[in-house]
Structure formats: C-alpha cells, structure tokens
C-alpha cells in the first residue's frame, strides 16, 4: 500500500515537473516506428482487400486473419524497401478516437516476439492523419501509411504467404515464386 502511494506521489511530482513517468516513456518509445524498424528481425505487412465487407468494422484481428499477409525478414532485399516505405510514417497518440476502418497493418518482430504493431485506415478525403491503432492504443497515423503498406505489397507479391482462410484475399498473382 505504501509502495503504491509512493508511486502515485512520484508520478504526480514528475507530471508537475513536466517529466513523463517511466511507463509513459516506454509507451512513447514503443510508438517509435523508426526505432522498431532498426532493431526488428522480421515484419509482416497486412492489406485487407477493399472487396471484403464485414458485419462490423474490421479490427486488428480482422486485418491479421483476413488481410493478405506479406512476410519479410531483415536478410531479404525487400527489407530496405519496407524501411523506405514506412520508416518515416508519422504516428501520434490520438486526442480522441477517430472513425475509420482499419484496413492495413504492420507488425515488427524480433526473435523474442512482437516489438511493434500498427494498423491504419484508408483516408476518406485529403486529411493528413487518419485513425490508427498501435500497441493496442488509439493513435493518429499518417494518411500515407495505407498507401505505403499497400504499395509495398504491390511491389512484392512474391512475399504473400499461403492463403489459409477462404476469405483471405490477395491480389491475383501473389504468392511465392517457384524456385529456379
């Protein structure tokens, strides 16, 4: 009990002093896409086809289970392309939840597990930021994220992995290229 009170007091003091508590710092750090890209070993890119309609707006689980999945590891030439495509995408905590269907996703991992994940919606107009979800928190993500992720998939159809669900739609011609 005393420890909790001490932590609460410390948090309040830090907040008054304009210093973020350790937990918030960690969250902010996890929101740093660029940092995650520098240390990740592999990435999965998801693109949920616009042809797929749902009873309720797709969530990250929908994007992962029904989106076309492109898998890439740091050792592949496409990794550099992924870094270039999404490395500079802006991401910030959302002041308030926004509307928008999550249709694209990016999951960065190392050998210990998932380091970073972000999901974004397709812009309805010319707005610079759209609804996103990262590290299970509502965020605003650059409207260019959807185009960057979709473009990566379009440039690397060979990275599309096996279709495990009948509704998982990948563009025609996607999938591993035959050896040789």
């Amino acid at each position: 009990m005393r420890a909790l009170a001490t932590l609460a007091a410390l948090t309040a003091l830090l907040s008054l002093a304009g210093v973020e508590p350790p937990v918030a710092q960690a969250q902010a750090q996890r929101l740093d896409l660029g940092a995650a890209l520098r240390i990740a070993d592999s990435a999965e890119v998801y693109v949920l086809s616009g042809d797929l309609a749902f009873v309720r707006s797709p969530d990250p689980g929908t994007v992962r289970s029904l989106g076309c999945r492109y898998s890439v590891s740091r050792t592949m030439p496409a990794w550099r392309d992924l870094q270039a495509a999404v490395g500079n995408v802006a991401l910030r905590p959302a002041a308030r939840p926004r509307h928008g269907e999550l249709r694209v996703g990016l999951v960065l991992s190392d050998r210990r597990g998932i380091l970073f994940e972000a999901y974004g919606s397709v812009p309805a107009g010319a707005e610079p930021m759209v609804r996103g979800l990262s590290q299970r928190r509502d965020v605003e993500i650059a409207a260019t994220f959807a185009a960057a992720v979709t473009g990566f998939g379009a440039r690397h159809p060979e990275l599309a992995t096996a279709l495990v669900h009948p509704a998982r739609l990948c563009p025609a011609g996607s999938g591993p290229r035959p050896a040789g």
Partner: protein
Amino acid sequence: MFELAFEESSALVMQGGSGGPVVSMDGFYQASDYQDSTYQESEYPPVTQEEFIDEVEETLAGTGGILSVDDLALIPEAEWENFLSALLAFVNGTPSHGGSDQNSYYNDHSNEAPLGEFFIEQWGFLPSVQRMPGYHYYDYLTQDIDPEFLEMAYASFLGASVFANSDLSLADIENMPFQMVVDGRPISITWHSGSAPGANFSTLASDPDTIVVTASTGYFTIDTQPPGPSQGNPNAMDFVQPTLENMQNGSLRAVQQAISYLDDNELARQILASAVLRGVRVVVVTGTAEHGEANGTVFWNPTAAVRLTNGGIMSPAMCLLHELAHAVFGLPNTPTGDAYGNIEDRYIIQQVENVVAAALGEPTRQDHDGDYVFGQTDVTFHQPPPDLGDFRI
C-alpha cells in the same frame, strides 16, 4: 469448410471415381423448366430425348465427347421414352379438373394458381411462399412425383450414357460410386451386378433417397448427397437443399433456421430472393471466424452474434442478412470517415438492417461497430440494449 450455394447454375459435372475425367455440360440440365409456372407461354416442354441428346452434343462439341441414342443401351430407349412420357403427360394432357383460371386443369377456387411471376423452384424455399395458396400448384404439376426423384432419374440417364461411352468394363466399376453434380445437387451413381432390389425407377426400401435403375446385366443405384428432406415429405422439396455443397446437417439447420426467421420480414425476403437471383454463395464458417462477404460469396458463422455499441445483441441471422445485402448491392465501399465506415455499410445498416431489425424486435445501431459474441446455438438469438431506466450521469 461448409458451403451453401444459392446457385442458378445449370452446370452439370461428372467425375469418375478417383480422379477420373471431368465432363462439364454447362447449360444442359434445365430443371427449372418443368416447374416454371409460365410454361404455357414458353416452349415447354423443352426436352424430348432427342433434344436432350442434341443439347448434350452441342455442349460437347469440340471436346471429343459424343452422345447418341445408341449409347443409351443400359437404359432401353423404350423405357426411357416411357419415363419421359409419364413425366410429361400431365403437362400435355387433357385437363381433368375444372377451374376458371389460366391453368385450367388445376381446380383453384381462389383463382390464385399458379403463382404468377414466382418460380416456385426459385422461391419455394421461403416459408412465406409455401404458405401462398398457389404453392400447391407445384405439387399438382409434379403429380406426386418427388422432384428429387426426377433429378435422380435424369442423373441415371446421363450416368448410364457416360458409362456406355467410357470403354470401361462394368466389372471394373462395380460398386464404385461416381459423383455427379446436377444443377448444383451432388448425386452419386453406382453400378451393381446381379438382380436389382426393385423395379426400374423404384426407390430402395432402406433409403427412400436412393432409386434403382435396372439394366440387362445388373442395376444402378442413384442417390442424392446429402439426402434431401423428401424422406419426411415425399412430395415436398426444400429448394435450399438441392444446392448444398459439402454441407453438414448442423449447418443446414442453421441456414434454414435463419432463412425462416428472416422470411417473416418482407424487406429481408427481398434480400434473400435477390441473393438467390444473383447466385450468391454462402459459406458456413465455424469457430471464431468472422462474418464477411467478398465478390458474391458470404462467409457466415451461425454461432456468431454481435454485441452492438448500445449493448444490444444482434443475432447471427441478422448478420447473415447484412452480408447477403453486401452481396446484393453494388454500392461503392468508399470510406465515409463517419461511424459507418463506408458508403455501402451505411446504406445497408440504415436502409436494410435497421428496418428489418426493428420489425423483428432486434436492436438497431447507428454505427458499424461491435464485438463478436461467439458460441450461440440459436441463430435468432438477440437481446435489446440494456434498460438503463432513469440512471443518468
């Protein structure tokens, strides 16, 4: 994966036992003709044996496959002609009943038969159609011959023809079931040697969904897969059942339950009917798979209800309607930036789902959100939003 296909396809495919050749006869089988209530103005009856063969040969043109009367040796031509005559007699025959309507040989006191523009075979799966007075015209048209039986009889005709053309020894294919798909209905045909267990075109006592077709040196058994509901009512035909593919009984019951439930609402009925017309396919998924729709195929999980943001629970059946509506409407999926997500979902929720939900006592919603509640055993299960009474913050 289980599939229910609302298909209009008249494709016929026959595949030999283990990876044998596939013969496709698109457009050949026209089951709808003998049930078409507008037949009097059409070229009904469309099929004599010769026309039958002509159509098949036309379809087979260029494929190397041929078919002729001579190939029908396993079913004596005279016998087949007798069958066709019996089948068509009530169509061409002299009226034996009174009646004042256009269908003069059907004694329809309410003057409501046949069902006008409704094709019973198209809409007969809807309970609301079955309740219409004119529905029983269909029973009359088939003269107590189970339509399922008719399809099997056609299948036997075709199967025998293909066997005759196959250059296979009947001994080699004995007891080997060959799979056929006639108008979307899986049918199995098997050759047996020895004495037939019944007369030609009789049903097996042990299985009313299997018929016997006799030949000079043995007999065929032909049965539908899965068995149709005709076992319970030999003169009725569930018009969903014939187009089932790989469907398990539990899934079938769920689909039928949902259709019966939705059919109580006129708008929902229109969506169902439109889905059938457009050849929408319904794939029944299980576990925690989501409902979805893509390119005319609906993925439906009969156990998945949706808890709406207002706390109400929308039934799995209503979810099916939502997805069928997606398959029916061709609105753009352009993002709207509002709570509905995109143009089509906004239209469907506001103009279809909420209208039907209100009529059926289900909760409505003003967004496209919600969380799945899996594990439902009743596809109609729904709950209103919680009553907060006078509680205010």
